[in-house]
């Protein structure tokens, strides 16, 4: 059985970068797949990888990570500026970040309209 844990952005927005990352990793270490509303900052994504590496051991092998952004290629210039402005002020709530334990999630593939999450049992789940 695979457990998905939805994390609304409001749950992490008050936290500093280090605590955000730690919170997400702690959930993943409970063998749950995190579905985070929005995305982390770019530097936080790098921190997520670095802190994951610090935690890797015989039991915890790391994570699979995917971030889906709403396609903004067709977005008008004004809308893009507005989105960037609110993203800067309130955090990036758009899109979805998926973080799964590598012991369960084999691979996450994405295309503009769907995510395919392959578990170690080679069964296919869709988010």
């Amino acid at each position, binding site marked *: 059985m695979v457990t998905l844990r939805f994390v609304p952005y409001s749950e992490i927005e008050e936290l500093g970068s280090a605590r955000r990352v730690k919170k997400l990793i702690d959930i993943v270490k409970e063998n749950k797949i995190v579905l985070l509303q929005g995305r982390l900052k770019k530097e936080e*994504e*790098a*921190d997520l*990888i*670095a802190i994951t590496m*610090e935690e*890797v051991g*015989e039991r915890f092998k*790391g994570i699979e990570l995917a*971030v889906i952004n709403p396609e903004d290629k067709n977005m008008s210039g004004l809308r893009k500026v507005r989105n960037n402005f609110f993203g800067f002020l309130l955090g990036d709530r758009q899109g979805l970040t998926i973080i799964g334990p590598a012991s369960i999630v084999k691979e996450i593939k994405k295309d503009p309209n769907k995510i395919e999450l392959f578990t170690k049992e080679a069964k296919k789940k869709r988010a």
Partner: protein
Amino acid sequence: MISILKNLVNRFLSSLFKKKKDFKLGLYGPPNGGKTTLANRICKDWLGEDMGTVSNIAHETREIQIKEQICIKSKGKELTFNLVDTPGIATKIDYEEFIRAGMKEKQAKQRAKEATKGVIDSIKWLDDMDAVVIVLDATKDPYTQVNITIVGNLQARNIPVLIVGNKADLKKADIKKVQAAYPQYNVIGISAKYGDNVEQFYEGLFAIVK
């Protein structure tokens, strides 16, 4: 007064010289993309020697390797840099994969431990780079989150980037796919192993550090 002025001028000149002398060019990317093979190619071309060992088993490079004062020349231009070959960045490391590749358990666990430290070091060193070449295996999906995270972090730090689609000699290589994934960057298809298209790669280097 004159001695103070002399000191200031000396300090200014030495800082200029130091900056130029210490220009760091980093090779970044996921494991087994061919970073060390490219580092060896550059070192062989310009210093006549190798930089590190390569292997089919992932995470062969587990420590930052630096080759200082590489001077490359092309079409009357000259560029001197310290080449920094970094361990591949990954989100997971499983020692059992090394066992499956033929290693003994103790050796595999040690390799995994060193590899995790290597990833952390690579990320830490991002801030020190003056320019970066991202080395991707052109036979693989270029649009992985690790690649996107590396690109995003370099972008956030305003570090000039050149993307290399390596292993272009292989049938499965798809340089156009790499170019389509990162349209905002100059993507050059090369074979670091056989030296295909390296001239264009050196030209690309001059273009990003101008």
